[in-house]
Each structure stands twice: as structure tokens, then as C-alpha cells.
């Protein structure tokens, strides 16, 4: 029996702390840049997309937390329902945003993609950390 090595635990805890921060920082920076470069509408759209990316991430983390804290790795019906609801809301939100032309689809997509950039940033940071050790 053994647990994860302390360095790995630290790395995981760090990723848990850093990822949401990266998402927020990128969303704020992206909103500023797109509003400055392409106007207010795109800035607002980017902010909405970034917000969706953050909520989506937080929601999934919460579901995994529920799984882990109940010490029941086998997913329950409620877990499936929660994830299904997240996906359904996201689909409905995107459909309304795109069809009602309330916001710029490009801006929303840009905002949603902050998650990917945040993951890349975290990966590079972890590589940097492990390379330094």
C-alpha cells in the first residue's frame, strides 16, 4: 500500500488551483483584447464564452468531487443526470446564442476556447516544473 508521491500530490493540487485561475485570467485578457480590437459586441461575446467555459469546468469538477467524496467511483444515476443536465444546458445556451444572433458566434467560440489554452498553459507549466527538479 502506498499513496501518491508527495511531489505528484503537490503537482495535482497545483493543477487544481491553477486551472480555474488560468481560465479566468485568459477570459479577462481575451475580453479586453477582443473589445479593444474588434468592438464591444465581440468583447461581450468573448466574456460570455469564457464564462461558459468556466462554469462548465466548475460543474464537471463538482460532479467528480461528488463521486470521490461518496467513495463510490461507480457513477450513480444522479451523476449521469447531472452531467446530462450540464450538456443539455450548454447545448440549449449555444443554440439560443447562435440562432437568436444575440452575440457574435466567433466571440463565444473564442471565449469557450480559453479552456483549451488554459490546459495547454498548465501542461507547459508542469513540464517546466518537472524539468526544473
Amino acid at each position, binding site marked *: *500500500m*502506498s*499513496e*501518491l*508521491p508527495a511531489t*505528484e*500530490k503537490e503537482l*495535482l*493540487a497545483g*493543477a*487544481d488551483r491553477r486551472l480555474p485561475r488560468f481560465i479566468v485570467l485568459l477570459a479577462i485578457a481575451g475580453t479586453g483584447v477582443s473589445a479593444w480590437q474588434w468592438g464591444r459586441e465581440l468583447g461581450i461575446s468573448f466574456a460570455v464564452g469564457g464564462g*461558459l*467555459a468556466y462554469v*462548465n*469546468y466548475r460543474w*464537471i*469538477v463538482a460532479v*467528480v*468531487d461528488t*463521486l*470521490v*467524496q461518496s*467513495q463510490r*467511483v*461507480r*457513477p450513480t444515476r444522479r*451523476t*449521469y443526470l447531472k*452531467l*446530462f443536465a*450540464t*450538456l*443539455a444546458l*450548454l*447545448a440549449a445556451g*449555444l*443554440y439560443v446564442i*447562435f*440562432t437568436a444572433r444575440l452575440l457574435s458566434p466567433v466571440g463565444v*467560440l473564442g471565449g*469557450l476556447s480559453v*479552456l*483549451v489554452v488554459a*490546459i495547454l498553459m498548465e501542461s507547459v507549466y508542469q513540464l517546466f516544473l518537472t524539468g526544473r527538479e
Partner: protein
Amino acid sequence: MLGTETEAAVAKTQGPSPQPWRQLSFILTVAFVFPAALVIGYGIGWWLDSKLGTRPLLSLLFLGIGFVAALLELFRELKRLDRP
């Protein structure tokens, strides 16, 4: 995020556990795949609609396909998470 109680429980029976990394991988995969599948599905439908003049039929249809694809991926990931 990565519940120490479960980590310890798993470690008791299995030695050093990849479970927390698997959980992180699950979170990142699902967080990425959800919006990506929906956006790609809708994008294909929107493009076909604009070519065929069927708006919003195909947009909705492909959004639905993206939704189902995301769900299937989610179930696959949950199964992987469940695997010891």
C-alpha cells in the same frame, strides 16, 4: 478536487494509484469534449443549412448529433474512470 479519502482507499488495495491523474484527465477531457462536440455539430448543420436553405432543421439535427456524441464520450470516460 481529488478526494484524499478515495485516494487512500484505492491505494490500500492497489499500491500507487493513477486514480487522481485519471480524475484530472476525466475533468479536462469532458470539459473540452462537451462544448467542442456541440459547436462542431452545430457548425456542420449551420453550414449545410446555408447551402441547402433548410435553416434551422439541419442545425438542430447536427446539434443533436453532437449532443449524442458528447454523451457517448462521457459514458466512455466514466467507464474508464470506474476501471481499477
